[in-house]
C-alpha cells in the first residue's frame, strides 16, 4: 500500500536518516517517539509538505515523492487541527470537495456518513472559535476523510484532548480504521500506541529503531530507548559467556547474571522486569540463581508501592509494596540482598 524506502531529509538542525517501512492496506500503523524525534517531519514528508532529499515514497506501487501535494490523495490531520477559522464547520468539511466538480447531492452523500460517524451533525453552522478541542479534532478528521484519502496521517491526534474524551476519540479512530481507512498515526504516548496499533515503528533521533506488532516490539525491545517507552527500567547491554550448559550475561564485569536460555550470540540485551526482583535483608537459599548484595541508591513512591533502586554494580530497579518496604526498613544507603530467577532475566539478541 504505502512503501517508504530509504527516505532521507535534512532541515536546518534536523535530519531524517534512511527511513524505511511499509504500511499494508487497512492497517493502523503507529510511529512512536519522543518530541523532536522527527515524527511530524516524516508525516509532512509523506504528505508532500517537506521535500525529501533521497529515497522513495510509493503509494499503491506508484512513486509519489515528486507528485504535487494536492495530487497525492493523502489526508493529514495536524496536531493543532488547522481548522480554517473564517469558515463554518460545514464550509470546512466541504472545502476539499469544492474543486472536485461534484453536485450538491454527491457532496452531501459524501459528507453525511462521515459527520454521523464523527457525531458532529449538530455543529455544522458553528464557527471554529466556539468549538472545544475535541470538537475541533472531529471537524479536522471529517474534513480529511471526505476527500477519501488512500492514507490518513494523524499528527498527535489525542495530544490536546483532555483525558475524559481520549477514550471516546480512540474508539472513534478504531472505528474509522475498521471501516477500511489505512492510518498512520504519530504519537509519544505508549498507551495510545498499544491500544490502537496493528504495527508500531519506534523513531528516535530521525531514525526508525524498531518495527513490529506492539507485542513484538515491547516484549523484545532492541534498545534502551524502546524499553524505556514500555516502562522497563532494567535493560542492559550485555556480553555473553558460555561454559558447558551455563549461559552467563555480564552487564558489568563484576556482575555475572545466570540465564536460562540457549544462545550463540556474544552480545545482546538483558531485560529484567521490576516485579520479578525480590529483596531481602539477608542472603538465603532459594531456587533463584541470581543473588547479589547491593546498596539502596534511591527509593520513591509509585502507584502500587515503592520503586527501589539497588546498586549491585549496575542500578537495578525493583518494585515492592509499602508494607514490605517498611518491614525491610528500606532507606538510602542500606545494604540489601537482591534475588531473581535465571528465567526472569530475558536475553534479547539482535
Amino acid at each position: 500500500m504505502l512503501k517508504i524506502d530509504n527516505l532521507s531529509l535534512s532541515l536546518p538542525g534536523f535530519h531524517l536518516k534512511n527511513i524505511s517501512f511499509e504500511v499494508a492496506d487497512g492497517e493502523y500503523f503507529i510511529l512512536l517517539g519522543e518530541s523532536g524525534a522527527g515524527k511530524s517531519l516524516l508525516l509532512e514528508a509523506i504528505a508532500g509538505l517537506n521535500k525529501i532529499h533521497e529515497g522513495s515514497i510509493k503509494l499503491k506501487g506508484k512513486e509519489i515523492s515528486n507528485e504535487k501535494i494536492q495530487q497525492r490523495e493523502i489526508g493529514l490531520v495536524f496536531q493543532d487541527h488547522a481548522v480554517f477559522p473564517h469558515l463554518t464547520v460545514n464550509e470546512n468539511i466541504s472545502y476539499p470537495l469544492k474543486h472536485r466538480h461534484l453536485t450538491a447531492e454527491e457532496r452531501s452523500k459524501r459528507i453525511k456518513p462521515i459527520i454521523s460517524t464523527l457525531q458532529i451533525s449538530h455543529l455544522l453552522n458553528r464557527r471554529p472559535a466556539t468549538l472545544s478541542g475535541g470538537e475541533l479534532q472531529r471537524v479536522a478528521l471529517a474534513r480529511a476523510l471526505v476527500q477519501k484519502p488512500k492514507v490518513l496521517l494523524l499528527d498527535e491526534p489525542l495530544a490536546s484532548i483532555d483525558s475524559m474524551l481520549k477514550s471516546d476519540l480512540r474508539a472513534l479512530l478504531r472505528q474509522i480504521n475498521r471501516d477500511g481507512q489505512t492510518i498512520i498515526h504519530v504519537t509519544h504516548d505508549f498507551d495510545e500506541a498499544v491500544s490502537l496499533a496493528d504495527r508500531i515503528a519506534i523513531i528516535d533521533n530521525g531514525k526508525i529503531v524498531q518495527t513490529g506488532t506492539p507485542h513484538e516490539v515491547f516484549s523484545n525491545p532492541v534498545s534502551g530507548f524502546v524499553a524505556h517507552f514500555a516502562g522497563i527500567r532494567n535493560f542492559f547491554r550485555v556480553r555473553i559467556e558460555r561454559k558447558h550448559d551455563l549461559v552467563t550475561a555480564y552487564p558489568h564485569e563484576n556482575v555475572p547474571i545466570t540465564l536460562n536460555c540457549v544462545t550463540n550470540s556474544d552480545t545482546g540485551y538483558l531485560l529484567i522486569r521490576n516485579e520479578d526482583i525480590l529483596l531481602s535483608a539477608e542472603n538465603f537459599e532459594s531456587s533463584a540463581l541470581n543473588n547479589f548484595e547491593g546498596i539502596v541508591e534511591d527509593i520513591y513512591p509509585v502507584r502500587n508501592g515503592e520503586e527501589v533502586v539497588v546498586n549491585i554494580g549496575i542500578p537495578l530497579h525493583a518494585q515492592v509494596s509499602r508494607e514490605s518496604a517498611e518491614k525491610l526498613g528500606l532507606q538510602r544507603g542500606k545494604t540489601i540482598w537482591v534475588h531473581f530467577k535465571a528465567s526472569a532475566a530475558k536475553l534479547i539478541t539482535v
Partner: protein
Amino acid sequence: MKSFTPFQLIVVLASALILLFIIAPLAGMFVATSPADLFETAKDIEVQQSIKLTLWVSLAATVVFSVAAIPFSYLLARKSFPLKSIVTGIIDLPIVIPHSAAGIAILGFVSRNSLLGKAGSAIGLDFVGHPAGIAVAMAFVSLPFLINAARDGFSAVPERLEKAALTLGASPSRVFFTIALPLAWRNILSGLILMFARGMSEFGAVIMVAYHPMISPILIYERFGAFGLKYARPVSVLFILISLAVFILLRMLARNKEQKPVHHA
C-alpha cells in the same frame, strides 16, 4: 481622588500638548471659516470638480495598483529569497524621499520621451497633465502603506492553515484566494484605506506631473497663492470634511466586516 505620581503627570501633560498641537491648527482653521463661506465654496464648480477628481483618481490608483501589490505582499510574507532585505528597503523608499523629487522622477518616467510615455502615446494616452499621470504619482508615494500592511497581514496567517488546504487538494492559487486572502483581509483593507488616504492628500509628486486637471491639494495651493489665506481656508476645510467623512465611512465598513465572525459566534 486618584493622585498622580510626578512621572504620570509629566506623561499626561506631554500627551495633552501633542494632542493640542494636532488639534489646535485644524480647530483654528474651522473656527475662522464661516458657514456662509463654506457654503459658497461648496457651490463652486471648480472646487467640486477638484474634490471629485481627487477622490476617484486616488481610488482608481489604489484599486489598480493593489492587483499587483497584494500578491507581491504575499510573496514577501511567505518566501525568503536573495536580497530580500534590499527589496524590503526599496518598498519604503517612496516614504523617505522628498515628494517633489519623487514627482520629478515620475515625470521623467511618464513623459512623452520615455518608454512608458511613448507606449501611452501609441494608444492616445498622455500621462502628463492627465488623471492617469496623477494616479501614477499618487500610487508611487502611497504604495508602501498598502504593501507593508498587507505583508503584516499575510505574515500573521499561520502557514499551517495553508499547508492544510494543500493537503485537502487545493491548488496554490485556491489556497491564496480562499485561505490567505480572507484571513489577511483586515490588514489589507486597512492598508487600502491608508493608501487611498495618502494618495488623496499627495501634493508634491502630483504637482510635478499634472498641475491641471487640478486635484484639491493643488487647488488649495493655487487659491492661497492667488488670493491669500482667506480664500484657501474654506477649500481646505471642505476637503478635510469630505476626507473625514470618507474615512469614517470606510472604517465603519471595515469594522462591520471584522465583527461578522462575532455575530455568528
